[in-house]
């Protein structure tokens, strides 16, 4: 128990430590939160009249954001499926980040519902047992239950896994796996229940359509992972140059040393460029310059190129054969990867002059090029070589490009389904030409000189279509294009699901009155405040969890000052 409080205290302490970028970001978010709080206090004092809502359009951006964020929360956990069901190792560490995102999103959801209440002081009327809870008849009571349940589930799973990492113990399966599976089902349920909030209203034909539920899920699985793709790259950027922990030296049984070494020739470099095409771009002058710093090693099977914990500025490229990289963690050995011809080993510690993170052993008799750090740097003057080496390096950190590509394929499929369902909806509304399509008309083409939402929905549709095309094209395999696509997805779906679903449901009113809605400044400030609050929470969660996952914040270094645990770069000055 005491241990747990120390863990919590250290987590809390680390949230206040960081470099100037961290403080600037948190400062900005805090200011936005306070502006939002100020706007909310004004609303609390004067009532919802300070918003743009009316009896005609009685829900606005609060509920729109709520709906969007429920989707984000649901999708964040759905990433668990590839990991726990299909054993996809790439996404393993991402799961915790996804679940933390779910926690932050649910907190935002709860905030958005609360600010939408006319009498937030009477929230206790909603508490089962104390108040009057209209369960199971009211879908809103379902939503209260599933959202809070989901919050608890995710807090439990993340908290437990992180605590185990912190203590370097293996998590007890029975204590989290069942919850993981419950969370998966629960994730579907939170978004379905939220869709049912709308679908269940017979008096609103725009919502009263069975396709809303599937559309919600499809759009959630597009926007959620898209958001994670972006967030993870920010995390990676911030943590990329961090030094990973140096482990204990060597394996149990001492591996053999390399048997033969000789000076390299230009032919050896040519041999490398056969498997590492980027090498061909290195000009001959540079090749000649690095030649004295390069050696060729003949390594027998079982021979070690480098050992975990040693400090030595050599990197290796494999010419022939294969090498396994083994990492010792808490007395256990884990093969982290296998490197074949053209691939590199040991470049991270060579470039950063940090201890070796793992041990590399030849699986079969292999031929290896050994370079000094300077030689490697010289070769990396070629942009192509630099790019390939760097991208392979980043793969080995928490968030690999492969993981991002797995997320990309989730976004890809979901977006296709999302657009397909949208086409279904539009066809049904417009082709049949019945009289219940006034809201759709208002949304897509405008009705009786009212067309406030028309530019919005067409922006959303354009964004979604462009994103869909980009996702299908191979171009979105490059991170630059993928990021653009993700931004398009998120904005497109936010509009489509928020402004495009909630607002037109009210226009025209059930009595046929046309009244448009525009969020007021005060309302907008409250929304920004809540988003800032959510980002603040998520930043803090990441700030705590990244060092834990990387092993830099653990029970072993309990005595050490937490302020010296950097968010990221070893270069960042402590606190």
């Amino acid at each position, binding site marked *: 128990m005491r241990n747990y409080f120390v863990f919590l205290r250290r987590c809390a302490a680390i949230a206040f430590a960081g470099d100037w970028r961290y403080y600037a970001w948190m400062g900005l978010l805090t200011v936005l939160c306070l502006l939002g709080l100020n706007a909310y206090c004004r609303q609390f004092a004067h009532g919802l009249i300070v918003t743009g809502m009316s009896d005609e359009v009685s829900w606005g951006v609060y509920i729109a954001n709520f709906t969007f964020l429920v989707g984000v929360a649901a999708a964040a956990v759905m990433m668990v499926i590839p990991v726990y069901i299909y054993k996809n190792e790439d996404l393993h560490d991402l799961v915790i980040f996804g679940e933390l995102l779910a926690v932050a999103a649910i907190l935002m959801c709860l905030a958005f519902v609360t600010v939408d209440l006319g009498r937030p002081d009477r929230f206790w009327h909603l508490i089962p047992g104390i108040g009057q809870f209209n369960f199971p008849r009211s879908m809103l009571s379902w939503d209260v239950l599933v959202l809070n349940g989901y919050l608890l589930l995710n807090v439990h799973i993340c908290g437990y896994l992180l605590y185990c990492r912190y203590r370097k113990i293996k998590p007890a399966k029975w204590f989290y796996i069942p919850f993981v599976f419950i969370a998966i089902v629960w994730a579907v349920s939170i978004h379905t229940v939220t869709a049912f909030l709308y679908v269940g*209203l017979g008096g609103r034909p725009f919502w009263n359509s069975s396709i809303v539920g599937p559309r919600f899920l499809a759009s959630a699985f597009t926007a959620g992972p898209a958001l994670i793709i972006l967030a993870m790259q920010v995390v990676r950027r911030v943590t990329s140059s961090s030094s990973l922990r140096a482990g204990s030296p060597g394996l149990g049984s001492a591996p053999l040393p390399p048997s033969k070494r000789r000076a390299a020739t230009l032919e050896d470099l040519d041999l490398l460029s056969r498997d590492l095409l980027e090498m061909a771009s290195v000009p001959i002058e540079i090749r000649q310059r690095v030649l004295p710093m390069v050696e060729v090693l003949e390594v027998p099977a079982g021979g070690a190129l480098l050992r975990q914990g040693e400090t030595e500025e050599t990197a290796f490229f494999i010419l022939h054969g294969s090498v396994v990289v083994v990492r010792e963690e808490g007395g256990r050995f884990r093969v982290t990867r296998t490197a074949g011809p053209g691939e590199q080993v040991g470049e991270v510690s060579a470039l950063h002059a940090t201890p070796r993170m793992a041990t590399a052993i030849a699986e079969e008799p292999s031929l290896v090029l050994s370079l000094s750090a300077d030689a490697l740097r010289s070769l990396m003057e070629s942009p192509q070589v630099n790019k390939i080496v760097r991208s392979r390096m980043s793969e080995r950190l928490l968030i690999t490009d492969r993981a991002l590509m797995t997320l990309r394929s989730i976004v890809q499929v979901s977006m296709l389904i999302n657009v397909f369902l949208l086409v279904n909806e539009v066809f049904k509304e417009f082709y049949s030409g019945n009289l219940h399509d006034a809201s759709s008309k208002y949304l897509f083409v405008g009705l009786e000189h009212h067309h406030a939402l028309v530019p919005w929905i067409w922006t959303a549709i354009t964004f979604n279509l462009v994103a869909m095309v980009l996702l299908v094209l191979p171009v979105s395999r490059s991170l630059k294009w993928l990021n653009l696509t993700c931004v398009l997805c998120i904005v497109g779906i936010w509009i489509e699901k928020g402004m495009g679903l909630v607002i037109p449901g009210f226009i025209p009113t059930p009595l046929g009155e046309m009244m448009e809605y525009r969020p007021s400044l005060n309302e907008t400030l409250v929304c920004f405040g809540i988003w800032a609050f959510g980002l603040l929470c998520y930043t803090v969660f990441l700030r705590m969890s990244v060092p834990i996952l990387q092993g830099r914040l653990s029970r072993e270094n309990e005595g050490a000052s937490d302020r010296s645990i950097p968010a990221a770069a070893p270069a960042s000055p402590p606190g």
Partner: protein
Amino acid sequence: MGRRSFLRTSAVLTTGLAALAASLKPLLEMNDFPTMERFLQKYYKEMTPQDMAKVLKRIEDEVEQQYHLRPHVRDLKPMDGVEFVYCLNLTRCIGCRKCVHACVAENNQSRDPEIQYIRVLRLPDGSLDIDKAGHFYAPASVPEKGFFYMPVQCQQCENPPCVKVCPVHATWQEPDGITVIDYDWCIGCRYCEAACPYWARRFNFTKPSTLPKERLNLDMSYLGNRPRRQGVMEKCHFCIQRTRAGRYPSCLEVCPAGARKFGNIRDPNSEVSYILKSKRVFIQLKEEMGTAPRFFYYFDV
């Protein structure tokens, strides 16, 4: 902790607290902060007669404090063997909107912003398509040629969607068919407003305005026309303070055309029973919703 870091920490803390205080400042503009007594008030159906007596006295005190007039606030119960039904003769209605204003006066509704329970629709002859309705017609005189008028208010459905969706049971159907709201229990989520197919519910987006003293209706009922607060729903309740005491709703009394009929459907000799038995066609608005309104529109044929 060093001197420098102490100074820095205290500077950050002071700035932070000052910013927090500044953000919270609008709360000072609040003049209706709930008292502990109101905060802890029980749910209508869970109150004992003693609890209710206390609450009614408190409401009377509050009104008296505000207006220097003592109202008579009652908690009228439904009568046995009574189920109220409203019938509205569309042939007779001339669209004068007198009912709208009589309702506002009777039920002590906020005047600024004005909350009205009744919306009179102007429809072109020959169509009952609500999408064609005019809401804001303002001719020199009514009725206008080529149009008929349809006042819409709470339809007191037998199967009310608003009651179904309320997460806290703040609105429910009484045995006499009136769907009521406990204004002191509503949390203001407005889900009922989204659920109502008749757009019959109104929300207090801000504190209801104070009425001129002479306009205040002192005959009040807990579930009816007693003063409401900011952030809660309200709607037509068939003038519960009148009808449960054996009087007609005020919209009926004021109607100059005699278009409105109200009564007990369980009494075979009542006017509404006669109308529903004798008219060949009567209209329940949006009948296909399955809400089964207790509000019937009919024509003189």
